[in-house]
C-alpha cells in the first residue's frame, strides 16, 4: 500500500472524513413511519407477524422468569429489535456465537420454550446437563454455539469458525460465522484479536455489536472515547455500518447487506446497533442506583422497538388491538405453561458431574467419582441436607452409586 506524501503536518481523527459523527441508518421513525428517503424492505404480513411475535416473546419471557426469582437472570427486553432483526437477516445455518443477550436468535430458529426453561432451571432436559448458569444456551441443531460467561472470548473463536466455513466446499459462499457482543465486551483484547484475524487472514465473520449504553453500571462515556464501536471498523480495513438498533427493519436490512458483503468478500464486516438497555443488567442488579428512573421511563415510552414496529404494522392494516390482546394472552400462557412444567422436572443424574471433562475418563476423575460414591453410600440416606438434594435429582443419585 503506497500512501500519499504531504508537506503539511496534519493530524486526523475522524472516520467520516469531515469530522462529523458516524450516522445511524434508520428506516422507521419512533412512530413506525418510514422516514424520508427510506427504502422499506419488501416483507409480507406473515413475515411481519413472525418478527413481531418473536419480539414480543422476549419481554414476556423476561417478566415471567425474572418474577420467578431466577437469580442472576439476564433480561432480554428492549433490545428485541437488535436480536430479532439480526436473526431474520441470517441463514438458519449460519454459525452464531453469542454473548448472553441473544436468546432471540434461538427462538427465531425454532428453539422451544421447553428448551429455554430446561436450561434456565438446569433440569435433566437441558442439553448442557445443568452445568451452566441461566441463559447459557447452546444448540448444535440450531447452529448456536454454547454461551460462556467470560466476555468477548467468542470473538476470535468466531474468526476461526468463519475460517472453517471458508475451507469447507459445502459451506463456502453459503454461510458466515456471526458473533454478537456488547459495547463493553468490545473493550476486551479479544475484540481486537478477532477483528484483526477476520480482516487479515481473512475469514467470513460477521461482527454484530449491540451498543445498549451500559456495561452493568458503566455508561458509554466511561467505556470508550471514540465514536462508538463502528469507528474502530475502518481501523481494521473492515466495511462498517452503524444502525438504529431499535428499528427492526433497519437492523434486518443492514445485517442482510452486511452478510452479503461478508460472504462475497470472505472478510470481516462490522455492524453496530445503537439501542438502550431499559432493564437492569440482571436480577442481581438495581440500575436505579446508577441512573435516573425518569431516563429509563422516557426511553421506554418514546423509543420502544416493539411499539415502533407495531405502529408500522397497524399502518399497513396487518395488526389491531384484538391481535395484540390475543398475542399477549397466548404468549403469556405458553411461557407460564413451560415454566410450570419445568418446575416439576428433576435435575440431571449426579453422574453427569463427572462426565465430558475429557473424551475418556482419566484415573483422577474415576477415583474422585468413586470417592463421592463412598461418601453417598455412607451419608446419603442419613444426612438430611444430602437426602433432600438427592431427592431433586432425576435418578436420586442412584446411577452414580450403582
Amino acid at each position, binding site marked *: 500500500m503506497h500512501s500519499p506524501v504531504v508537506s503539511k503536518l496534519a493530524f486526523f481523527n475522524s472516520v467520516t472524513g469531515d469530522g462529523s459523527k458516524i450516522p445511524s441508518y434508520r428506516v422507521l421513525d419512533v412512530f413506525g413511519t418510514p422516514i424520508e428517503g427510506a427504502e422499506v424492505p419488501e416483507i409480507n404480513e406473515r413475515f411481519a407477524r413472525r418478527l413481531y411475535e418473536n419480539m414480543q416473546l422476549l419481554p414476556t419471557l423476561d417478566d415471567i422468569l425474572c418474577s420467578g426469582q431466577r437469580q442472576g437472570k439476564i433480561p432480554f427486553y428492549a433490545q428485541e429489535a437488535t436480536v430479532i432483526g439480526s436473526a431474520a437477516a441470517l441463514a438458519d445455518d449460519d*454459525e452464531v*456465537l453469542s454473548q448472553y443477550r441473544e436468546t432471540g436468535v434461538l427462538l427465531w430458529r425454532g428453539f422451544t420454550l421447553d428448551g429455554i426453561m430446561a436450561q434456565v432451571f438446569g433440569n435433566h432436559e*437441558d*442439553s*448442557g*446437563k445443568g*452445568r*451452566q448458569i441461566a441463559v*447459557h444456551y*447452546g444448540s*448444535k441443531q440450531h447452529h448456536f*454455539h*454454547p454461551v*460462556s460467561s*467470560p466476555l468477548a*472470548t467468542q*470473538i*476470535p*473463536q*468466531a*474468526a*476461526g*469458525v*468463519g*475460517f*472453517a*466455513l471458508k*475451507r*469447507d466446499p459445502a459451506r463456502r459462499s453459503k454461510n458466515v*460465522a456471526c458473533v454478537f457482543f456488547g459495547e463493553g465486551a468490545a473493550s476486551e*483484547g*479479544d475484540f*481486537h*484479536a*478477532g477483528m*484483526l*484475524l477476520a480482516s*487479515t*487472514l481473512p475469514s467470513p465473520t460477521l461482527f454484530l455489536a449491540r451498543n445498549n449504553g451500559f456495561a452493568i453500571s458503566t455508561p458509554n462515556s466511561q467505556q470508550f472515547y471514540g465514536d462508538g464501536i463502528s469507528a474502530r471498523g475502518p481501523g481494521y480495513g473492515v466495511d462498517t455500518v452503524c444502525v438504529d438498533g431499535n428499528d427492526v427493519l433497519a437492523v434486518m436490512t443492514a445485517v442482510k447487506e452486511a452478510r452479503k458483503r461478508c460472504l462475497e468478500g470472505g472478510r470481516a464486516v462490522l455492524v453496530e446497533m445503537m439501542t438502550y438497555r431499559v432493564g437492569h443488567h440482571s436480577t442481581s442488579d438495581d440500575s436505579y442506583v446508577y441512573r435516573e428512573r425518569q431516563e429509563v421511563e422516557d426511553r421506554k415510552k418514546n423509543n420502544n422497538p416493539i411499539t415502533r414496529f407495531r405502529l408500522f404494522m397497524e399502518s399497513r392494516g396487518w395488526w389491531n388491538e384484538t391481535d395484540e390482546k390475543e398475542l399477549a394472552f397466548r404468549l403469556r400462557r405458553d411461557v407460564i405453561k413451560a415454566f410450570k412444567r419445568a418446575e416439576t422436572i428433576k435435575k440431571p443424574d449426579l453422574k453427569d458431574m463427572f*462426565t*465430558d*471433562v*475429557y*473424551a*475418556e475418563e*482419566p*484415573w*483422577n*476423575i474415576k477415583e474422585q467419582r468413586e470417592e463421592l460414591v463412598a461418601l453417598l453410600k455412607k451419608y446419603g440416606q442419613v444426612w438430611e441436607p444430602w437426602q433432600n438434594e438427592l431427592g431433586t435429582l432425576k435418578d436420586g443419585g442412584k446411577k452414580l452409586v450403582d
Partner: protein
Amino acid sequence: MSNLTIASLAAFSLRRRRADDFSIALAKDDSAVIFGEYIAFGRVFRCREHVFNTPLTEQGSAGFGIGLASMGHTAIAEIQFADYIFPAFDQLVNEAAKFRYRSGGHFSIGRLTVHTPTMAVGHGGLYHSQSLEGFFIGASGLKVVIPRCPIQCKGLLPSAIRNPNPVIFMEPQVPIDDFALPLSSAKILIPGSDLTLLTWGTSVYHCEAALRLLNSPPPSLAPLVPPSLRSAKVELIDLRTILLWDIETVVESVRRTKRLVIVHEAGMMGGVGGEIAAEVGKRAFLRLEAPVRRITGWDVPAALQFEKFAMPDEISNILYE
C-alpha cells in the same frame, strides 16, 4: 550475536527439524492447518492454505484455533515461546479446557493442539526459558505433553494432534550444543532399585548426566561422592505427559525403590512436583523410607547471566542425592 539472536536461532533450528513432523500431520489429515507467528518463514509447503502466519496475538490464535476445532478441523496453533502463552491463558483455561463439559458433550475441540517451545535454552533469560506446565495442570479438560527430545517429539506430536482432547504440547528447546542421547523408547529409561528419579523434558539429560557422574565421579568431585553411593542403582523415568500423568508407572516404581526424587526446571512453588509428591505420598506412604524430594528451579525469574545456576543440572542433582 546477541543472546536473543542465539535463542531465536535455537528455536529456528528446532522448527526446521519439526517441519517434518508437521508435514506428516498435514499429509495424513486434509483438514489440518498450522498457524502462528513466524510460522511460514523460509519454508515451501504443499499448500499455502494449510500453513499461514497470523497477526501477533496469542489470545487471537488460541481463540481462532478453538473456533476451527469446534467445527471439526484439526488446528495446530503455534506459540513462539511458552513464555508468551499467557495472553492465551483465558482462552485455554476458561474456554478450551471447559468446552466439552459446558456443552453437555455436544460440542468439543479435541482437534486443537497448541504447540510451543519451552524450558531453558541456556541463553534465554527471563522470557525465553520458562517451564509453565504447572500453570495448566489445574485446567481439567486439557492435556499437557512434554517430550524429552526430537525423536520423542516425532512420536508424541502426532498422538497429541490425534488425541480427542485439546493438548498443549510443550517442546523443550534443545540447547545449541546437543547432548549425546541415550536412546531408549521406554518411559523407564534406566531401571533401578535404590531410588526413583522422575523428570521430564530437558532435565532428563541433566539427570542422566548426573547418574553418570554419581557412578564414576571425575577426580574433582570424587571426594564429595562417598564410595557407598557410587554403586547406587537409580531408576530414571521420563514422565512425558504431565496432564494427565502416568501414576501407575510412578507408584509401581516407588513401591520397589522406596525413594522418590522429582526434578523439574520450573520453580518449586506451584510446580508439578508438589502435585506428584502428594499423590505418591498418599499411595506409597508405608513403603517410603524417606520423604519425597523435589529438585527444582529457584523461585526467581530466569535471570540471563545466572542460568547455569538456576536450572537443576548435574551438580545439583548429585549433591541432593
